[in-house]
């Protein structure tokens, strides 16, 4: 690394938001304009550094870490400050940087009760540090630190700014995640002791090959990782915290939760669990695939039963993350690439759906589907955007959602060597049924909310259609959904080398 900035870039991407938090602390609470501009400025600066990283990233190079920094951190346990970015982390960090900016813009003029923009934005920025750090950490302890750093800000965002049942929802979120991460940490420690007293992800992957760990132990270690990541994803049957958290969270919280936080789990599978413990992954894969397809069907059926729009979108997340996990469970490059694409696409699309839901809630003060209706009449622009996002979500070809689902289903036709073909082809059929159900619940949602004429209670009211902040916050997401849908290579090109390296282990 000849260039001085190269070695600083990733640290800046991670820690600039914290600098912003410090600045926010110094601004008096009453100076709301200034607070908003400081937060926005920080997020934009972070994204700018990330933009520079993306520009300087060598896309043609074989799989390796870019902008790597490897400094001593805690010598006693041989844990190092090892960061770097590869094809897996790059799209996700970029997503997180963009989403945070959009969330700040969206909140500009309507912070949820009890208002307090200073604390709200500070928590948002702490969250950004946690998210970005998780995607660039190359050391398990560092990864864990960032992974957990996300927990408290989200707990407070839901618990302070959330809906009526927020305390229950936030505590549930907190306890579920803590429970999972305890097991994850145990697995990290087990790897440390079994595979050469290091926490470095790449070194561990090499060491495990030769370390002669019994298959049973590997299965157990993978099990610990599985619990930690599967709860975060969340996979069926660990998903029960998600609908509550989403329903109660403020709009921005829901968006970040769906767009980035859930990806911490799937990313963990791809980045840590699969490469370090390929043998155990092969034994676990059928079970992961099974839970994934159960999640797809269960999430879809759950959607059909929902009366609340936000809760419905939350259940659709369970189904969509099922597709991502199904792709991962095939252990093939197609499947994992699809999963990576699915993560980004789901982030954009479901984030967009939550934005729409939030805006509907702002105006109608309810999300009860049976009370809505005739959105196309009362707020045509918002209704069209909702329709667009629903179409993207159900996997319409030409929009981003398609490239997450279709290759994932395709990959189950021929899973990696050693996995049962008949079983995975059964999964394929079930997952395909899931896409039909997805079309069903999304179109039904759209029919009930957008078509017809507004219900009597709202008929006389005038609603302001999409306003300026909403346009600014949404336009980039809508644009990305189209661009990625038309030109999927843009993303597959980035992820493919890293994914190939992982798939070559199977």
């Amino acid at each position, binding site marked *: 690394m000849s260039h001085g900035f190269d070695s600083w870039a990733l640290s800046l991407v991670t820690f600039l938001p914290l600098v912003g938090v410090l600045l926010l602390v110094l601004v008096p609470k009453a100076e709301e304009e200034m607070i908003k501009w400081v937060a926005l400025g920080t997020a934009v600066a972070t994204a700018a550094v990330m933009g520079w990283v993306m520009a300087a990233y060598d896309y043609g190079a074989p799989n390796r870490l870019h902008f790597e920094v490897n400094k001593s951190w805690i010598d006693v346990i041989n844990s190092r400050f090892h960061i770097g970015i590869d094809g897996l982390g790059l799209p996700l960090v970029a997503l997180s940087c963009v989403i945070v900016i959009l969330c700040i813009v969206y909140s500009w003029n309507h912070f949820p009760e009890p208002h307090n923009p200073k604390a709200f934005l500070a928590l948002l920025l702490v969250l950004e540090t946690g998210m970005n750090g998780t995607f660039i950490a190359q050391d398990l302890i560092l990864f864990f630190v960032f992974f957990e750093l996300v927990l408290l800000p989200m707990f407070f965002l839901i618990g302070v700014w959330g809906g009526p049942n927020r305390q229950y929802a936030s505590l549930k979120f907190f306890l579920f995640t803590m429970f999972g991460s305890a097991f994850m940490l*145990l697995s990290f420690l087990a790897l440390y002791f079994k595979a050469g007293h290091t926490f470095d992800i790449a070194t561990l992957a090499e060491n495990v090959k030769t370390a002669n760990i019994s298959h049973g132990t590997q299965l157990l270690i993978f099990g610990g990782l599985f619990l930690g990541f599967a709860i975060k994803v969340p996979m069926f049957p660990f998903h029960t915290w998600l609908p509550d958290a989403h329903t109660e969270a403020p709009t921005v919280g829901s968006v970040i939760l769906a767009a980035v936080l859930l990806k911490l789990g799937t990313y963990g599978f791809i980045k840590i669990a699969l490469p370090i413990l390929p043998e155990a992954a092969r034994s676990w894969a059928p079970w992961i695939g099974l839970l994934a397809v159960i999640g797809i069907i269960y999430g879809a059926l759950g959607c059909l039963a929902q009366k609340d729009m936000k809760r419905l979108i939350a259940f659709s997340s369970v189904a969509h993350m099922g597709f991502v996990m199904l792709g991962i469970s095939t252990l093939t490059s197609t499947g994992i690439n699809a999963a990576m694409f699915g993560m980004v696409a789901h982030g954009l699309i479901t984030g967009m759906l939550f934005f729409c839901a939030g805006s509907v809630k702002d105006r109608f003060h309810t999300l009860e589907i049976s009370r809505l209706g005739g959105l196309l009449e009362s707020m045509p622009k918002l209704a069209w955007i909702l329709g667009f996002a629903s179409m993207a979500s159900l996997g319409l070809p030409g929009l981003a959602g398609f490239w997450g689902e279709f290759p994932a289903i395709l990959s189950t036709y021929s899973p990696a060597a050693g996995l049962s073909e008949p079983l995975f082809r059964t999964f394929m059929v079930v997952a395909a049924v899931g896409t039909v159900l997805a079309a069903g619940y999304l179109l039904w949602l759209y029919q009930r909310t957008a078509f017809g004429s507004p219900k009597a209670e709202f008929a006389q009211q005038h609603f302001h259609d999409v306003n300026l902040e909403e346009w600014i916050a949404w336009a980039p997401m809508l644009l990305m959904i189209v661009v990625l849908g038309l030109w999927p290579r843009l993303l597959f090109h980035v992820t493919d080398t890293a994914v190939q390296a992982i798939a070559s282990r199977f």
Partner: protein
Amino acid sequence: MLALIHSLAQVPFAKPHIDYHALAPEIVLTVLAVSLLIADLFIDETRKYVITTIAGVGVIAALIPIVTLAVDGSDRSLFGGAYVVDNFALLLKALFLVAGYLTLLMSSNYLQEGDYYEGEFSFLVVCSLLGMVVMASSRDLITIFVALETLSIPGYLLAGWRKRDRKSNEAALKYYLLGVVASAIMLYGMSLVYGITGSTLLTDIGAKLPTITDGKPLAAIGILMVIIGFAFKVSAVPFHQWAPDTYEGAPTPVTAFLSVASKAAGFVALMELIFIGFVGRPNVWAPIFWVLAALTMTVGNLIALRQTNIVRLLAYSGIAQAGYMLVPFAVAGDNNAAQKSAFTAILVYLISYAAMTLGAFMMVIAIARKTRSGEISSLGGLFEYAPGLTVVMSIFVASLIGIPPLVGFWGKLFVFRAVLDAGTGWALFLGVIASVNAVIALGYYGTLLRTMWMKPVPDGDRRPIKVPQSLVVGLAICALAVVAGGIYPQVFTRFGDLARFF
């Protein structure tokens, strides 16, 4: 009798060589204690806060020789090996002095506003500190005992400082009676150990204990009694009954002092005894510590779940935290690697425990200035009118839970590393108990967080809290330690290797 005196007189008296540099911290504290008493006589009633200021400056002054000794770096052994100044001693002396300084910071306003005697208070705190500082250097049963009494007796008095308050009287009496019983048991145990090994020097005991053939059961009883004596001191279950009542009744700064500095002193003594004196007999002490650790964690946490008073909650949480610190003792005897990592784990945990617990207590004092209540529910809606304090308190609570990147997380991580280094079935079982307890603890710490951030203000009084400057300084020190130590744990985890005396 005459013959005895005669024979003693035959022993030529040699003036021991005294290394004044090594003893400088103790000398500074002694001079400070005496001058505080004298100064108290001459200072006007309205300006008593000067006394606390002098005490604070004096305690900081005692840190200076510690720094020079650390720079010098050589291990110094005094009084025939009974008193050793090495890295371990220096590190813990520094920890005690900082904890003492923070206690003084906490107490100055508290005492003034409560109209309690201020001069004697600082004097007693400094005396107790002197005992702790001596404890860090003790390598001899008698020195350990003297240090323990020096640090405990002022503690009994301090616990009863609010003398017009019945709860405070109860606190002092309970603490005193149980403390004396514990001392008696310990002293009896020490005499047995001395009787078997013929020496009070820990290194001698360490060398002789594994080789004795006769009197093994007696030695075991001796070790058991010594450990039980210290189990009182560190409030390990089932010897914890005094702690919640004492902590609730004592003035809050004293509670903080007892639950941090005094408890740490108990652990320091245990480290000296286990890693030097009784090191050869893990078959005796390992099971005792296993039971103590398991009980202390579990009972402490379960009772903490039911507390409604914040000081009692912190008391029980402190008991549970002590349980985590006992875990490494239980596994230290399994192999060399486990012994080393257990030593590191205890030190790391002690330092992190001190920072986060002192911080939490300071917070309680700061908040109680407005709410005038010790109930957890009185913290409701704190975030609405004191967001800064809420964030700082949340940092301490999150650290007590063990959320990274705060010091509490590293403490727990190092404890688990020691458990895994030992690797035996019993060790792993204890590790499982510890992790289950970490989850139980989420219950009451989560309630605290929830109350501060999400509950409504109970009495609707949203006036901001005015925090006195001394508390601001103290809080800043603790918060900095918790956060900076969490982000770059290397600053204190390396002490584990630096300070190891075996």
